């Protein structure tokens, strides 16, 4: 679905990505992590054509971002960024979610259906007539999620969608991403919360513009070299899993706790 062929991109003398090759298949859920400045946001922006590679090719669903119609590419890969305040444009929740589908020139009936489905998906249908300005940060981000979900694209790109919202809001957002994954959407999630990244079946770690790890979270947990490059403190449940050699299927707090309990029996 997404293919990077030996992609490099520079901003002045700064090389943001350096010969990156990778392939993400249809229906995959990939977590992307790296320190600030490692190239995560650049990678996302290359997929939907906000940036073009200096060298190499980015192919999305068979389309070359440097040659083919960007409108077609963005129909296939909808992106959502960090700050909901920067991406909400309409006064009411309903108008906000309708904005994208309207730009696709869909039939009004179809737009209405998509708006309702998308708001339902993020559990915000009861907020349909509310003013976007009066929502909390977490609610705004869920509306922003509904806006991209209403595009009904096969690929979703999420660039740190939880970094500015509170803990409860974050949990809801992660639930929504899990639901999209179940619907066999292709998902690329950038986050610097390890606990979120470790929920993806495949994790890519970027460091100084290069891919330094590409594999399962259960493998990453024991890769000291990569974790050292990341230099992020592990959340306590992941550190516990690592220290006591636990490898539950899903590396969240609950599953780690269960694995630990079994080990103690």
């Amino acid at each position, binding site marked *: 679905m997404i293919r990077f062929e030996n992609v490099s991109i520079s901003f002045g003398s700064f090389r943001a990505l350096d010969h990156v090759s990778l392939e993400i298949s249809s229906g995959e859920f990939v977590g992307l992590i790296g320190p*600030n400045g490692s190239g995560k946001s650049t990678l996302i922006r290359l997929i939907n054509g906000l940036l073009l590679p200096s060298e190499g090719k980015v192919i999305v669903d068979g389309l070359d971002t440097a040659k083919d119609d960007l409108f077609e590419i963005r129909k296939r890969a909808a992106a959502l960024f960090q700050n909901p305040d920067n991406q909400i444009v309409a006064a009411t929740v309903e108008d906000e979610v309708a904005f994208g589908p309207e730009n696709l020139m869909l039939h009004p009936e179809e737009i209405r259906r998509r708006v309702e489905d998308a708001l339902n998906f993020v559990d915000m249908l009861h907020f349909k007539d509310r003013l976007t300005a009066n929502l*909390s940060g*977490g609610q705004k981000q869920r509306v922003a999620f509904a806006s991209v979900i209403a595009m009904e694209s096969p690929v979703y790109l999420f660039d740190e969608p939880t970094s500015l919202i509170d*803990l409860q809001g974050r949990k809801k957002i992660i639930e929504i991403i899990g639901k999209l994954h179940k619907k066999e959407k292709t998902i690329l999630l950038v986050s610097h919360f*390890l606990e979120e990244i470790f929920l993806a079946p495949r994790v890519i770690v970027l460091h100084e513009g290069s891919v330094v790890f590409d594999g399962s979270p259960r493998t990453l947990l024991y890769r000291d070299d990569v974790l050292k490059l990341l230099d992020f403190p592990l*959340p*306590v449940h992941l550190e*516990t899993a690592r220290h*006591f050699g636990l490898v539950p299927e899903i590396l969240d707090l609950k599953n780690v706790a269960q694995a630990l309990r079994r*080990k103690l029996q």
Partner: protein
Amino acid sequence: MNVDVRNISYIYLYDTPLETLALDGVTLSLDSREKTAILGQTGSGKSTLIQHFNGILKPSAGDVALDGKNIHHKSFSGLRRKVGLVFQFPEIQLFEESVYEDIAFGPKNLGWGPHEVREAVFRAVALFAPELKGKLDVSPFSLSGGEKRKAALCGVLAMEPEFLCLDEPTAGLDPAAKRDLFTRLEEIHARGVGIVFITHDINDAFAFARRIIIMDHGRVVLDMPRTELMTNISLLGDLGFAPPDIWLLSHYVSESLKDGPFFEKEAFFNALERRLNQL
């Protein structure tokens, strides 16, 4: 130094249809020897409260005193600078041509002489952000996100406050930058500066603060030392907060472990190892 707020209320947009009671009779006393975390949902009044500590907001009712002196009394207005306030995303307020000028902005506004200003800037940088030493001449906009935040913080520290109040200081920072920021705040505190910070993250509150305050609908609904809250953890649940992750995890296995729950990772891991050795 003490910050005392006595029965303060604050109303936004008074006498309009949008009138909101943001603070509803808050009384508390903070000591600069403390590290305090303020938790609460969006709209609970946390930010409004800390903006009263240095007089940016004037309470609709009640009063605020520093070391017993009302900060809204004319003759004591000079006291306000002793409480440094760092807004959320302080880096968006950087605007000068160089990092140096940005950090110097506050002290200059206090009317300090050029020599004093220079000293203050270098002191703040040496203490809080030594990595910025070589970057004082560059534009603040060329700094990384974490560096910008530190530059903005240095601007407040350069005014040499005795109290530092921070509104979600780690929002948007990556975990390494966050750990670094807390380490530096710890150093500032060791030099006698009181720290109050707003956070959404119960893990951060327990890891860094020794006193925990929870706000809800403009009121203080919980205010106790961390140690006391540890023995009354169900209070958190009553207020809609999950306990820290370390507690949740150790609580889940405490029966099989025959120990815990814990609040410190080392103690938890030691208990686990002891138990596993027995098995």
